[in-house]
């Protein structure tokens, strides 16, 4: 069976793809023979790229995202576009325009989101495969944790965002997933680095991150922030996470407790900034230049309102309304501008902690992947609360990795490791120690 045929099978079973390539191309290089799947919000030249939204149906970008071009240059073949929450708006990958992916460990449970499809394919592929994913507030870590794979979210600006269909530009980071830490580190090595098409990219040269995957935690100082083990974190999850932390200790690391007092404010700051930016990003989608079109009727206002009513899902509409509200005159100071200030406080929290420790360790998600029936019971705010452990590092722009550290209720649990900006090497090192001992 060809890789493309296998991808179709995976899709039939788990609804992991929005688009599958007709043929797998490839060449020589670090990723020779590897099929790379790409989250739907990352543009691939000639492949429909919708970011999981109906409103972008039919949008075929005339360019490759920089990360995709880098993969091709290293010999990878592009397998297809993986499912996601619409524009990344979700934690369980149920807010989609094209169907909901299923968790390979239990199809009645969520894959996590928003990079759900990427995690599924990574978990089940029996061929050489790596996934390009993307995180704004935890969209790589969460599905990696729920599906039991390794997900790396790099430092903000470590990878170019050229070709990424924006959710919240000041938070969006393209990252990667693999079955193992070394595999994920290999893709990170390929996609990192400066790019003239993205002004916000960092200019530091990339490194070979696989060289850090030595399974050794010798000398690493691990900090455990008490705020990440509070109310709402499942005790079964806490237990497995501590098992992972103990593993690091037995592999030579020292463990201390740290405090990150601004953690509790990060969720509101994150959602305000993310929605404010998102609501302006989505304004361009009005049925005039790309994506969904309708017969031209009425005036401009009537036409675009109709296209947007039809094209956006409910969560997208909610975020447009909330995001617009937070930046309107009279509310702007109290919400948007204040959220920006809180963000700098959250960054200070991390900078302070990293003066004393190399790596922070915490649960990736407070629970294991929930059942769809449980998700249906949740209010929107309870969805947002699920991100409580991932939004702070995403706001701060520090790199993070979710690495499997055991199972609870028969479902994978993820250990979340975070380091200071551009310290992806230490991240890979620590994660490989956890993985090696497992």
């Amino acid at each position, binding site marked *: 069976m060809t890789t493309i045929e296998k991808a179709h099978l995976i899709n039939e079973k788990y609804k992991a793809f929005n688009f599958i390539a007709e043929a797998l191309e490839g060449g020589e290089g670090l990723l020779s023979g590897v099929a790379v799947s790409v989250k739907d919000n990352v543009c691939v030249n000639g492949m429909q790229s919708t970011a999981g939204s109906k409103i972008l149906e039919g949008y075929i970008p*005339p360019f490759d995202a920089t990360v995709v071009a880098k993969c091709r240059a290293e010999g990878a073949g592009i397998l297809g576009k993986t499912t996601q929450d619409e524009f990344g708006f979700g934690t369980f990958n149920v807010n989609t325009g094209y169907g909901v992916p299923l968790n390979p460990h239990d199809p009645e449970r969520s894959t996590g989101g928003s990079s759900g499809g990427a995690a599924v394919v990574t978990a089940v592929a029996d061929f050489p495969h790596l996934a390009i994913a993307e995180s704004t507030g935890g969209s790589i870590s969460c599905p990696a944790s729920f599906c039991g794979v390794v997900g790396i979210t790099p430092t903000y600006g470590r990878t170019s965002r050229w070709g990424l269909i*924006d959710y919240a530009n000041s938070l969006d980071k393209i990252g990667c997933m693999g079955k193992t830490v070394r595999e994920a580190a290999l893709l990170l090595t390929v996609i990192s680095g400066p790019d003239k098409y*993205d*002004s916000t990219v960092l200019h530091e040269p990339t490194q070979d991150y696989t060289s850090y995957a030595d399974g050794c935690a010798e000398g690493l100082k691990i900090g455990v922030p008490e705020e990440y083990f509070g109310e709402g974190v499942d005790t079964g999850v806490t237990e497995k996470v501590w098992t992972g932390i103990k593993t690091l200790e037995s592999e030579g690391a020292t463990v201390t407790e740290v405090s990150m007092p601004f953690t509790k404010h990060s969720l509101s700051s994150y959602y305000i900034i993310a929605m404010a930016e998102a609501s302006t990003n989505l304004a361009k989608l009005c049925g005039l230049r790309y994506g969904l079109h309708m017969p031209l009727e009425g005036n*401009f206002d009537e036409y675009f309102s109709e296209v947007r009513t039809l094209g956006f899902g409910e969560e997208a509409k909610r975020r447009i309304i909330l995001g617009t509200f937070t930046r309107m005159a009279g509310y702007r100071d109290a919400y948007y501008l204040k959220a920006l200030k809180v963000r700098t406080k959250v960054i200070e929290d991390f900078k302070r902690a990293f003066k004393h420790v190399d790596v922070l360790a915490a649960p990736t998600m407070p629970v294991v992947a929930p059942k769809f029936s449980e998700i249906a019971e949740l209010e929107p705010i309870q969805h947002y609360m699920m991100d409580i452990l991932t939004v702070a590092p995403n706001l701060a722009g520090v790199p993070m990795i979710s690495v499997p550290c055991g199972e609870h209720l028969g479902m994978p649990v993820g250990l979340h490791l975070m380091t200071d900006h551009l310290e992806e090497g230490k991240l890979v090192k620590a994660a490989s120690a956890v993985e090696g001992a497992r």
Partner: protein
Amino acid sequence: MKATIGLEIHVHLLTDSKLFCSCRTSLMGKEPNENTCPICLGFPGSKPKANKRAIDHGIVLAKALSCSLVPEIRFSRKNYFYPDMPKNFQITQYEVPLAMNGYVMLGNRKIRIRRVHLEEDPAKLIHVGGDITTARYNHIDYNRAGIPLVEIVTEPDLEDTKEARLFLEKLSVILDHLGVYDPTTEGAIRVDANVSIDGGQRVEVKNITGFRNVEKALNYEVVRQKSMANMGIDVSRETRHFDAESGTTSSLRKKETEDDYGYIIEPDLVKIKLHSEWVDKLTESMPELPDHRIERFIEQYSIGRFQAGIIVNTGLQLSLFYEECCNLYKDPKIVVNWIVTYLLKSLNYERLNIKESKVKPETFVELLKLIDEGVISERTAKELIKEYTVSGESPRKIVKEKNLSLMSEDELHKVVSEVIEENPKAVNDYQSGHVKAAEYLIGQVLRKTRARAAVDTVRKLITDMMESKPR
């Protein structure tokens, strides 16, 4: 009743590429929507990248307007839905503009500049089958979308239409001197004007193209508001559209509150530090500004302030033309006289500016030299300049071809004799003491010779002949 006028002036900056992508800014010969790319069309996945050259221009302009530059600039998103906007937001500067608090002197009057900032131009809308309010549908041409604009916002310091016009003329000469815009491009300057009367409500007239239209729109608006006030009707706060064809303004929408654009910082563009090395380098190589040039002309060429002002304020090209002529001709005063009195008149008549015309310093001074050499009369030169303005032909050549040079003494003598013969009454008047009668006779000679005679020579000949002629 006193008018209060504030202007927002948008100027197309002269750069090779657009503000956030590498599309060209020259639209000559381009099909609609040909000059576009994923960035200026706002394709999902594309990202803007700031054009440093446009920032250079902005810095130089801010300096010329005596503004304070901010230490680092950011761009913002101004959000509103309109079909001319590829992204339904415009990348502009809001929280942190490029520069603030400058001024322009108009004589002794100080017109304050509130802020100067950079932004991208939207697309061009072509209203089909009507104007903005009546068109059945619109064509959108994105060729222009993303061209860099600088917006200059004045304080409401202008007191009447004439002052607004003088301000704009001065601003355009400054822009011209700095080389940051092309005055010949269609729509290179667009103006929004805020007008109120005696502390009444402020009315905004949007999107006026060209100086003449600004003057027309302001005149109309000032008169409209004054007549309303006279009739006891309150002027309401609104946005009005200017129709260039009828020269009138009409209401677009009432404005109860400030527009709310829900600005956010543009997260795709980083902060840009205006470090002193960068700014100093630009300031050092800044071209001479018009006010300074006027002073220098007065000093260096010993010409009057009025004439120096006309040369400089007409535009950079004329200043350069003048200086070039002064290098080629001995007397700058004569040059300035001929330019101000005759050349400009002729150019205006032909609706040409010096740059578009075929007039060149080398050929222009030839004309002055022909007078000095006694080849043609001043009067011939004044006639000749009209033809020369259009054709740009060498005056010496024209004189030769059309046989315009002064007559020989013999030829002239003959004509003068004829005129004296033909006008016994005038001769008689002269001889009986009406000296003025000679002027009539001189005029007759010049007419007959088609000005191919110097006035002084003719006068001398006529008086000599009449003195010697028996009564």
